C-alpha cells in the first residue's frame, strides 16, 4: 500500500476528510464564467499569511521601546542574516496588500457583486479593509523613525477635530499628550495581537458569508441573469459550474505567484519605493522634517485635510465618503449588475477613481 494513501485512509476513517474534500472543495462549484478578479480573495489570504510569518520572525529581534526600537530595526536590517529580506517582505508586503485590497474592492464594485443580498459580505469585507488600514498605521510607528513618528502624530491629532471629546481622545489614543513610549506600547500591542485577532475573525466571517450565500455569477456574457429576491434565504448554486479544487485553485495559485513575484520585484529592483529619507532617521520629537508625507494610500486623506480650511470639515468629508462606501449595497438597490446597463454608477465609479488618484498625486507633490 502506498504510504500517502495509507495516511489518507488512516485520517479518513477517523475524521472523514474525503467527505469534506468532496463537499467543500471538489464539490464546491463555481460559475463556469468565473474570471481572474475572483482570485483576489485568495491572493489576500496568502499575503496576510506572509505578513503573519514575517511578523513573527521580526518579533524575535524587535524591541518595543522608544529608546531601542529604531536601533533594533537597524540591527534586523543590517546584522541579522536575511533580516533585511523579512523586514522588506513585511513592509513592502503591507503596500502590496493595500493594492490587492483596492483591486478586490474595486472589482466587486464594478461587477456589482455586493448585490443579491450580499450586504453582510460587503460590510465584513469593508471592515477588513479598514482594519488593514489600522494595521498599517499601527505598524508604521514601530520602526520609530521620523516618518513613523510624524505620520502617527498627524493621524492621531486628526481625532482632535471631534467636538467635546476630541482633545481627550487624542491623549487616549497616544497614552499621553504627545506620541511617546506609551503610544509605541499600545500601538505595538494592537499591531501584533489586537488587530490581527479581530482581522482573522472578520476574515472568517467574510468567508462564511461568501460560502453561505454562494459566489455571484460574473455579469458578463450569456450566463448572466438577475435572480428574483425571495422572501427567504437561498444559497446561490451553480450546478453546471466548475469545481473549486483543482480547477479554480490552480488559477488562485497562479495569481498568488504573480503577486509574490511583484512583491519580490519591488524588493529587489526598487527597494526604496516605499521608503523616503525620513524612514531612515530616528524619531526626533522636536523636529518635524520638511515635506513629510504619509503612505500613498493615506495621501488622499492628507490632501483632503490640506484642501479644507477647517479640520472638522476635512475629517467630515472623509467620514461621509467612507460611510457612503460602507452603505453602498443599501444605497444601490437596483438588481442590475451589468456595467453597460449601469451608466450612472460607472460614471461615478470612474470619476471617483480619477479623483482619488488626482488628490493623491496632488498630495504627493504639494
Amino acid at each position, binding site marked *: 500500500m502506498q504510504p500517502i494513501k495509507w495516511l489518507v485512509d488512516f485520517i479518513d476513517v477517523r475524521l472523514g476528510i474525503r467527505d469534506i474534500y468532496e463537499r467543500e472543495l471538489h464539490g464546491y462549484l463555481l460559475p463556469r464564467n468565473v474570471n481572474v478578479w475572483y482570485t483576489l480573495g485568495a491572493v489576500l489570504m496568502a499575503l496576510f499569511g506572509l505578513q503573519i510569518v514575517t511578523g513573527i520572525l521580526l518579533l524575535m529581534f524587535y524591541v518595543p521601546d522608544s529608546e531601542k526600537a529604531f536601533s533594533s530595526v537597524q540591527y534586523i536590517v543590517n546584522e541579522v542574516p536575511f533580516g533585511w529580506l523579512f523586514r522588506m517582505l513585511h513592509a513592502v508586503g503591507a503596500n502590496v496588500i493595500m493594492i490587492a485590497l483596492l483591486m478586490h474592492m474595486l472589482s466587486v464594485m464594478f461587477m456589482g457583486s455586493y448585490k443579491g443580498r450580499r450586504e453582510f459580505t460587503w460590510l465584513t469585507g469593508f471592515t477588513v479593509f479598514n482594519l488593514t488600514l489600522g494595521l498599517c498605521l499601527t505598524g508604521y510607528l514601530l520602526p520609530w523613525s521620523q516618518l513613523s513618528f510624524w505620520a502617527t502624530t*498627524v493621524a492621531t491629532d486628526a481625532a482632535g477635530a471631534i467636538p467635546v471629546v476630541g482633545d481627550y481622545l487624542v491623549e487616549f489614543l497616544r*497614552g499621553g499628550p504627545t506620541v511617546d513610549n506609551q503610544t509605541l506600547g499600545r500601538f505595538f500591542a494592537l499591531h501584533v495581537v489586537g488587530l490581527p485577532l479581530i482581522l482573522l475573525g472578520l476574515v472568517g466571517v467574510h468567508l462564511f458569508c461568501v460560502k453561505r450565500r454562494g459566489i455571484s455569477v460574473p455579469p458578463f456574457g450569456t450566463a448572466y441573469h438577475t435572480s428574483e429576491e425571495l422572501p427567504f434565504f437561498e444559497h446561490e448554486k451553480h450546478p453546471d459550474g466548475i469545481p473549486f479544487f483543482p480547477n479554480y485553485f490552480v488559477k488562485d495559485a497562479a495569481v498568488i505567484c504573480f503577486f509574490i513575484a511583484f512583491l519580490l520585484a519591488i524588493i529587489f529592483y526598487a527597494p526604496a519605493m516605499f521608503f523616503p529619507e525620513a524612514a531612515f532617521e530616528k524619531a526626533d520629537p522636536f523636529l518635524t522634517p520638511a515635506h513629510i508625507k504619509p503612505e500613498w494610500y493615506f495621501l488622499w486623506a492628507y490632501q483632503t485635510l490640506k484642501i479644507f480650511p477647517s479640520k472638522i470639515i476635512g475629517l467630515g468629508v472623509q467620514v461621509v465618503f467612507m460611510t457612503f462606501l460602507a452603505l453602498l449595497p443599501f444605497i444601490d438597490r437596483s438588481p442590475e449588475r451589468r456595467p453597460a446597463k449601469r451608466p450612472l454608477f460607472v460614471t461615478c465609479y470612474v470619476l471617483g477613481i480619477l479623483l482619488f488618484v488626482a488628490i493623491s498625486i496632488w498630495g504627493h507633490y504639494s
Partner: protein
Amino acid sequence: MTTQITPPQRRKFLFILLGGMGALLGAASAWPLFRFLSPLAAKGGGKQVTIPRSEVAPGKAHFFQFHGKPAVVLQPSPGKFVALSAVCTHLGCIVAWQEQAGEFQCPCHGGRFSAEGQVLGGPPPKPLESFAVELDGDQLKVG
C-alpha cells in the same frame, strides 16, 4: 397548593440570571479597562521651567519640553521674550522657526504663525498657545 416549576422554566430562569450576571461583570470590568488605557497624569504639571538666557540669543528660538509637550522660547527683539507651544494647532506637527522671515512655519500642511504665535496663513484654526515668561537674573522662567 404547590406551584410546579418545569425544567424549561428553571432553564429560562438560569439563563436570565447568568445572562444578567454576565452583563454586570462585563459592565464592571469596563471601568478598570478604561482606567488602564487612559493616559497617566503628567508629572511636573504646573511647575516652572528654567532656561539660561544665554540659550536664547536675539532672533533665535530655543525648543524645550514644557509639561510633557514641545515648547519654544524666542527673543524676537532684544530683551523681549516670548514662550509658546511648539505644537501646530492644525494637526500637531512641530513648527519650525524661520529666522529670516521672522515667523514659524509648519512643515506638515504649511501653516504659518507670527513670532507671537498668531496665525498668518494656512489651515491652523487658532494661535499657538502662549506661556508666561519672565527674566530672573540670567535665567528665563516659563510657566
